[in-house]
């Protein structure tokens, strides 16, 4: 059996679990089951779900925030200030949401089955000039942030600005934006860190959720043995991803030191205030909007909170 997996960009920390999964599956099946990974050759990143739905390829990665209306249920994981702190917690809440029946149905519209998450750290911001550590300083700040995170910044008077990831560096250099919100690997690969004077280490406004899915028909027609191999390899692939991203975070610390980027710590009072203005109201209006179209929004939201508590209790 030969599967195609549609990813984009280039091989990076963000794709290491898929690379690892392909490696393990190939190994365990003695070469009978291979997964060919293509970086952008099979589809555009925002159309990977379309490709899965058509059956053009069997596996793909995408981000929920790229197209809210395609996958409304999993955007719960991109709400601002959910309170997720570690990559392990991100894995736990993602898996819990992915197995909720409403989410399964949502993705089934695309002939897709959620296989595993791509845990990413919080989208903290980098900026130039004087570090911002008070909410009132955010007023008028032009920030490159999308979706719910952008909305959260808007509530404290910042101006979310449309800039593509690839234009982020140029936009920062030219002053089109003052700050950019990314995960660490993206700050590194889109070089926004090269322009930065400071980075918020604990603002933790939220993150993007980028699952890996498989085509349901292709999954169903796998032999029992191959399906078993695929299912069993997921946790190993995730473990490898976490270990690798951990190394990247170590390197991040080195880069910060090397480029003399200041770590900004925001006080608990300021953070609580931000959460009060920019977190809860957006979360509540999400629940309202999604409930209005008949989705069990409150249930999904509570599932996230409950899973977080359980993970921390362990």
């Amino acid at each position: 059996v030969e599967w195609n997996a549609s990813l984009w960009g280039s091989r990076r920390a963000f794709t290491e679990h898929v690379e690892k999964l392909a490696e393990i599956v190939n190994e365990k099946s003695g070469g009978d089951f291979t997964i060919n990974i293509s970086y952008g050759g099979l589809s555009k990143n925002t159309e990977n779900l379309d490709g899965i739905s058509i059956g053009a390829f069997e596996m793909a990665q995408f981000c929920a925030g790229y197209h809210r209306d395609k996958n409304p249920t999993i955007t719960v994981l991109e709400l601002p200030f959910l309170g997720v702190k570690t990559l392990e917690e991100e894995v736990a809440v993602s898996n819990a949401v992915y197995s909720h029946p409403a989410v399964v149905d949502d993705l089934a519209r695309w002939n897709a089955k959620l296989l595993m998450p791509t845990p990413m750290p919080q989208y903290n911001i980098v900026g130039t000039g004087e570090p911002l550590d008070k909410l009132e300083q955010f007023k008028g700040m032009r920030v490159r942030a999308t979706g719910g995170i952008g909305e959260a910044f808007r509530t404290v008077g910042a101006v979310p600005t449309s800039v593509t990831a690839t234009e982020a560096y140029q936009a920062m250099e030219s002053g089109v934006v003052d700050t950019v919100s990314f995960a660490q690997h993206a700050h590194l690969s889109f070089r926004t860190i090269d322009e930065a004077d400071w980075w918020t280490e604990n603002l933790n406004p939220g993150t993007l959720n980028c699952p890996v899915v498989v085509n349901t028909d292709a999954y169903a027609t796998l032999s029992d043995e191959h399906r078993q191999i695929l299912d069993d390899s997921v946790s190993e692939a995730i473990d490898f991803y976490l270990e690798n991203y951990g190394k990247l975070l170590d390197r991040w610390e080195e880069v910060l030191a090397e480029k003399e980027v200041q770590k900004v710590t925001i006080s608990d009072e300021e953070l609580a205030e931000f959460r009060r203005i920019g977190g809860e109201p957006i979360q509540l209006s999400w629940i309202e909007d999604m409930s209005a179209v008949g989705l069990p929004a409150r249930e999904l939201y509570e599932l996230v909170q409950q899973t977080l508590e359980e993970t921390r209790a362990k």
Partner: protein
Amino acid sequence: MTSIEIGLWVSGLLVALVFLGMRVGFAAAFAGLVGLVWIFWSKRGYDPAMFGWALGVAVKTAGQVPHGKVASQALSLIPTFILIGYLAYYAGLTQALFEAAKRWFGWLPGGLAVSTVFATAGFAAVSGASVATAAVFARIAIPEMLRSGYDKRFAAGVVAAGGTLASLIPPSAILVIYAIIVEQDVGKLLLAGFVPGLFSALVYGGLIVGLAVVLKTIGPPVRGFTWGQRFAALPPALPILAVVVIIVFFVYNPFGGDAWGTPTEGGALGAFIVFLMALFRGMRWKELKSALLETAKLAVMIFTIIWGVLIYVRFLGFADLPGAFSDWITSLEQSPLLTLVLILLAYAVLGMFMDAIGMLLLTLPVVYPAVMALNGGEFVSAEDSAFGMSGPMCAIWFGILVVKMAEFCLITPPIGLNCFVVAGVRDDLTVQDVFRGVTPFFIADAITIALLVTFPSIVLWLPSLA
């Protein structure tokens, strides 16, 4: 049959369709669609019962491309830069530039042709699209050269070649596309185009003077302008400076402060300024409407090739031809410089059959990483590198080389877009005429490329200041 063999067969089909006179964008899309059906059907062992399935998947996969691929902010530079070109025509900028160039350089042997080259270089500073530049100068420079007794093929060749300068001298749509594909700093790339662009113009000019001295078939010099007339011709062309400043400041602030915005905004603002100038010069709805229709027509013509080629590229992705190429390049055991030269030669051959933008879109995802690896990787320092330059500098250098190759392919047969456009504007010329007239400029381009490869500092000097 392996997918690579399918890839080769379908590429053969594409070449055949193009030679049979099918419109290029549609030929690429058709070949790509046939290839997709073939690939999907082969995955089901050519089971006759599964043909319908394969057709459906292929058609739906191809059906994603026209909308999905053109809905891109980076590509929005193409219509804006085309619009600048047409508006500049109504703003009288093309005529003003040509008139000034004629009065200053007309006395040289082959003077009108030299003037055309310098005027296209000046116009390149407000135009980001080579084909648009060729189109407007075909309207004003060719008739004047014909009146002076130039061979019509040579006159057409001068315009087709001069038009290519718009891709190197900023603003340049194609440099922006390169920057976006390889995720490099757009501003530094646009700056890097300045010197090689002027350099190319000088090489073209030198070549024309040389030809005019040797061959008498090229038109006579145009003499008799007084210094007064010469200086009088400058003010109407001056507004072009305003546009240059806007575009440069949106890319990079020479005084060390922040730039004023992104290149995409700079391009659109430049268009707006030229639009105001055209209004001032008496453009009204009738002329604006015709400029918009012409822009739409040229943009559609280019975008049809873009999405058509991208359907074909999508098929290549499924056939994994790029992957095979990448493995092959990195396994070569020879000097990196030789490999680079061979890659450039391959571009010359590919460029004979492909449109420039299509060629870059098709190849860069594969070739760029290979070239960066040849130099020693993305983060290599100048001392440890194969080409004697750091990773980011290599990205800029290779970008300029590739864009120069892309310019080259705008004038090479059988598919040289500039030559088609000139022939399209001037219906008394066939494409074959233009191709014949442009032949001397192949040599000029070959010399320029050789110098850029040998002396990278021509390219890297300006961006290394920024």
